[in-house]
């Protein structure tokens, strides 16, 4: 579970409607209305990416009046299903896949099994990708792929569907580049 204590607030006078915040928002909490950015408070996980990207400095991070908790309890889903999905993705259920929120693979797996259909939903439900996003995105996409979910990247460039992992590297490439420890790391990361 992740506690969300802040909230993005848009200064409508400064906002020029450039859509940069809408594009970068990992939980799709921002959409445009009358050419101004609007924040869905229930979806905002306070990642601050809109604050960072806004060229007009129109975004302020404000403390929430009440703390919002996000998270999916793996216990709400059949444990065998979680183990099976994680195994297909070559992830251990207890392995955390988000270095910021320390969310384990089993929580994201539970969210997918419960019906999450997009990375945006995963972020809104679990808080994954609300931090740096540099570690967690690819393992999330791996879990979607392993569950057979057909993903449709948005028209903007919020995310691209890249789930490439060690287990996708062709054997001839593994053999061609022994100095990169592709075979050894595969064993090290999942047996």
């Amino acid at each position: 579970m992740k506690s969300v204590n802040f909230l993005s607030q848009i200064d409508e006078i400064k906002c020029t409607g450039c859509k940069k915040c809408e594009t970068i928002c990992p939980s799709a909490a921002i959409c445009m209305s009358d050419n101004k950015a609007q924040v869905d408070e229930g979806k905002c996980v306070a990642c601050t990416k809109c604050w960072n990207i806004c060229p007009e400095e129109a975004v302020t991070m404000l403390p929430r009046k009440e703390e919002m908790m996000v998270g999916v309890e793996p216990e709400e889903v059949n444990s065998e299903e979680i183990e099976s999905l994680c195994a297909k993705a070559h992830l251990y259920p207890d392995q955390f896949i988000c270095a910021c929120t320390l969310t384990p693979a089993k929580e994201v797996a539970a969210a997918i099994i419960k019906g999450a259909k997009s990375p945006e939903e995963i972020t809104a439900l679990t808080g994954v990708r609300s931090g740096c996003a540099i570690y967690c995105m690819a393992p999330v996409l791996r879990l979607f792929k392993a569950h057979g979910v057909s993903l449709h990247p948005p028209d903007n460039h919020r995310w691209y569907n890249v789930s490439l992992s060690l287990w996708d590297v062709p054997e001839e490439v593994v053999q061609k580049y022994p100095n990169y420890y592709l075979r050894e790391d595969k064993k090290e990361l999942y047996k």
Partner: protein
Amino acid sequence: MILPAEKPSDIMPSSNCPTADMRAADLIGTVSVKTKDLFPEIKQGYLQGEGISEIREATEKALADIQMDSINQNHTVNILCSEHGFYLLGGEHYCEMLKTIKDVVQQRTGCKKIRLRVAAGMGSRESNEVIRHFRLTETFGKRVRSMNAFDKGIPIETEIGTLYGLAGAYDADWIIHAFHDEPRDLYFYRMIDRAIKAFAMSYARFETRSVYHGNFGNRSGAFIQRAIFDSPFVQKKFAFGCFLRMTPSGITGVDADSDLYRLGKDMTVDLLRDYGKILQLFSKIEECTAVLDGGRYAYYLHAGGIVFGALENAEYDAFDLSQPAALAYYDLIGKLSRGETEAMDNIMFVNPALKAVVINQAWPGIPMSDLPMFIPTIVVGEKQADMWQMDAANPSMMDLAQKAETLEEAVTLAKQLSGTDKVLIFDGSFGYINLSTSLAEELLQKAPAINQKVNEELLPLWLRQRGIDPDIAVMG
């Protein structure tokens, strides 16, 4: 020799962090040791304010033999650079190298559409601050632009599948890779292909960076940069690389080549030899408090040319490729793989020699909540605490960390909680290390044996693991 504390390099003001009231070097009792007094064989370089005109000359000399005939006056050229270079010893050397590259290419080819692309990790604020602070528009006019990991991407077909680079990096006929060889987060790429790492990081979309960190291992991740760099798409545009060369003792010059693997091999030998010694020395520290005091992400603040992240992971030998993991994160997964679940319960994500951390000034944005989970972590000042409180990359930091009003108060508290008076300051230093007298004495006492061990035992091992013959590389 133990000397008075050195004045650290300047910090670029940033909206990412309030400026501290006091630098750690000004703490009573702080002293310094010069890296040349620890390891005399390490080549001395320029420090802040030194050798700017020499860097221009070195860049011109390095580029003199580079083939530029393929670039014509109607082409577009992107000089790709990274935020990290602007924080090395005040950034003016890196800046001078970039300006000189533009001048030389323009003079040799007649091309005027030479752009500068400044890559930063988390958003556009950082790189825009760099562009303003270093007045890059004075040289590049409107042809300077920031790039970040969330910018529009471009698909790159590689030997292992489609990966995404930043469209802004590749929207030219030619690209010039203008970087620096300071090793920074060596615990991630394990000093495999340093010269091309930026192709999987600085110039790549966040999904690609996540593939590197999350979908590959602690050694095999380095293959991502090779896959991208070797792709026909990148090779068609790649003109040459130009690198600011550094040792832990400063900036030593500039090197350029159109063959990045050759350049990378030369760099690897130097980096393993020089930084390997400081790294080994830090790994032998028995106990200390680290004080973070700089204008960068906390993990990337330097002491003697080595970043704080390397001290945090110093119980692993990151250069020894027979070790599968140089980070607790990968170590933990390896333990799961081997069924060592009991060991997992005891795993500590922090070098056990690190007894406390004081954050005087450092940027948030990179996950480091593990610090206060395991060791006393003290944040200086209310404004700094508010900043960490808001940091989405460290949501539990301020639930666990303590606050102090002043740096003196924080260090006193850290000494009480840690039980050690040894202090190591990460304030952006190359050429020297600011620290406590007790730790200075320990480092000076241990350095000679480490010098010998690296030269005779570890360096040959590290080189052989990277396919480099130590007899040829070291003995010439």
